[in-house]
Each structure stands twice: as structure tokens, then as C-alpha cells.
């Protein structure tokens, strides 16, 4: 969506800066290229490939947590990997979001009985969107990202509503 196409050339738009920033943020959700298991093939590699092409909605991978907005936790998190997940999350700049992709990242999945497996990545980092499936199809991941965009949109609306109520 280009603003000049929407409103015509030479037009002037009045918008709150935080709403503009949130609009920009939700249309450039760069995810961290960090895959743990088989979900990474569907959610990270297939997502950036030509068939599903998440680029067109601004979702693209970054190799460094310093440049990433979203972390897709794609795979089983065991107790040793949990330290790395936490470290990478801490290295990402604010604002940041986490997508728990697949059964393993959401609840432990088929490996939940093994004592070394963390029962869901939400025990380590706060999760915004859960995507069910084992592994989920890239369409599901795309839908998850649309939900995340909606959430970011709602967040800016909720912030301004909270300010209105304070006055």
C-alpha cells in the first residue's frame, strides 16, 4: 500500500506519529532466521520462497537478532536450547513479538513426556501468536502473521483509547 496511491499525489496526511509507526511496523515484520526443527522448513524457508512469498506482506528474514522484529520459534525447545532462545529474544530490539509455531513450541508437542523438553516456549519468552499444526502449513503461518498485524493495529488503538479514558 503506497500512501500516494491511496490519497492522490501532493496530498497532505495528518496522522498521529505512533499510528504511523505502528502502520510501518506491521507492514515490515522482519523475522529472525532461527529454526530449531522441522517447522523451520515450512515456516521460515518455505515462507520466504517463491510459492508463498511472505515478502509481499513485508515479512522477510534477517540474520541478526539486532535487526529482527519477530522471532518465530519453529521447533522443539529443550532445556539447553532454551538458554539460546532467551538470549536471542533479549538481543532483539523493542518492539518485538514472538510467534510460537507448531505443536512443539506451543505445548511441547509429541515430545512433551521427555523431561528435557520445555513444555511450550511461553515458559521462557512471552508469546503473541500460537500456530497449531505439526508442522503447520505456510498458509497457517501467513494467517498467523495477519493475526499479528491485527494485534499490532489493535495495540495502537488500545493505547490511544487508554489515554482518552485517562482524560
Amino acid at each position, binding site marked *: 500500500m503506497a500512501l500516494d496511491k491511496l490519497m492522490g499525489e501532493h496530498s497532505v496526511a495528518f496522522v498521529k506519529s505512533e499510528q504511523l509507526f505502528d502502520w510501518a511496523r506491521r507492514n515490515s515484520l522482519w523475522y529472525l532466521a532461527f529454526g530449531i526443527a522441522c517447522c523451520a522448513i515450512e515456516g521460515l524457508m518455505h515462507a520466504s520462497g517463491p510459492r508463498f512469498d511472505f515478502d509481499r506482506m513485508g515479512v522477510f528474514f534477517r540474520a541478526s537478532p539486532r535487526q529482527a522484529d519477530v522471532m518465530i520459534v519453529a521447533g522443539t525447545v*529443550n532445556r*539447553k536450547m532454551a*538458554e539460546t532462545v532467551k538470549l536471542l529474544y533479549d538481543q532483539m530490539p523493542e518492539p518485538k513479538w514472538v510467534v510460537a509455531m507448531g505443536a512443539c513450541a506451543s*505445548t*511441547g508437542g509429541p515430545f*512433551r*513426556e*521427555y*523431561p528435557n523438553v520445555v*513444555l511450550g516456549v511461553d515458559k521462557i519468552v512471552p508469546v503473541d501468536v500460537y500456530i497449531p499444526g505439526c508442522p503447520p502449513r505456510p498458509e497457517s503461518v501467513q494467517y498467523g502473521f495477519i493475526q499479528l498485524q491485527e494485534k499490532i493495529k489493535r495495540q495502537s488503538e488500545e493505547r490511544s483509547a487508554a489515554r482518552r479514558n485517562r482524560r
Partner: protein
Amino acid sequence: MLPDETVVRTTLSGVTQAEVSTSTLGVVVRIPADDASSALAALKASSLDFIMLVDLLGTDTGEEVEITYHLRSLTRDEDLYVKCVLPYEGVLHSVWNVYASALLPERETAELFGLTLAGHPNPARLLTVDDTEPLLRRSVAIRTLEEVRDR
């Protein structure tokens, strides 16, 4: 393919208490744990030409930990299984001087069966964090249904 039992027996004549037998697994050699390194070196240098350690496995038999060295001869297309037993909390002597491919599986086996590694250049844990119980022992319970539900 099965290696010739008599040749294996002759090769291991220096190792006392070496028992050679054929089971559904293949030709299995049982040796005392202390002789593992010398027995493997003899098998590698012999005419059987076992130049490759495919894998190093651990098994909890319920009474002790059984270590299996899976050897392969690429020139003769033959497999041999060398087994030794260690007590729980026993010491696993490294065979990396004979087979360098033992370096990683030895670390894994030691941490998952609660053994101590000796003679290893880097006897650190491989897959788990410190203070993890030996996960592949029978005595370590898996999570119950209730624990999983109340996550």
C-alpha cells in the same frame, strides 16, 4: 555380512575373557570394559580391517550400562559389535586414540547414562545443561499425563 568368528577370536587372543558369539544382531564380542581400547586397536590393525567406528551406543539393561561399539570394515563389507558393561556411575574410558569418531558419541553416552569420561580431551556435556539427570536411565521417569496437562 558377518566376519569370520575364528579370525576375530585369533585377533583378540591377547584379550582375556573375550567371548565371541553370533546372534540376530550379528557377530558380537563381549570384552571386559578395561580392555576396550586395546581390543579395538587390535581389531583395527588386523586383517579384518575394521577401520570405521559407525556408532557408540549405550543401553541400560536394568542392572548395568552396556556399551556397544559398532565397527565396520569397508573393504570387506563386514560389521562387528563389541560390547562391554559398566556399572552405574562407572568410568567410561575414551577410545578416541583408536577411533577419533568416538569423541562426540562418548560425550553423549556419558551424560545420558551418568558415566564419567576418562582420557577424553573435552569431557564436557554435549546435549544437556549442567545438573540434568541421566535421561536415558530406566530409573529416570518420563513426565506423567497430569504433569503434561498442568503445564
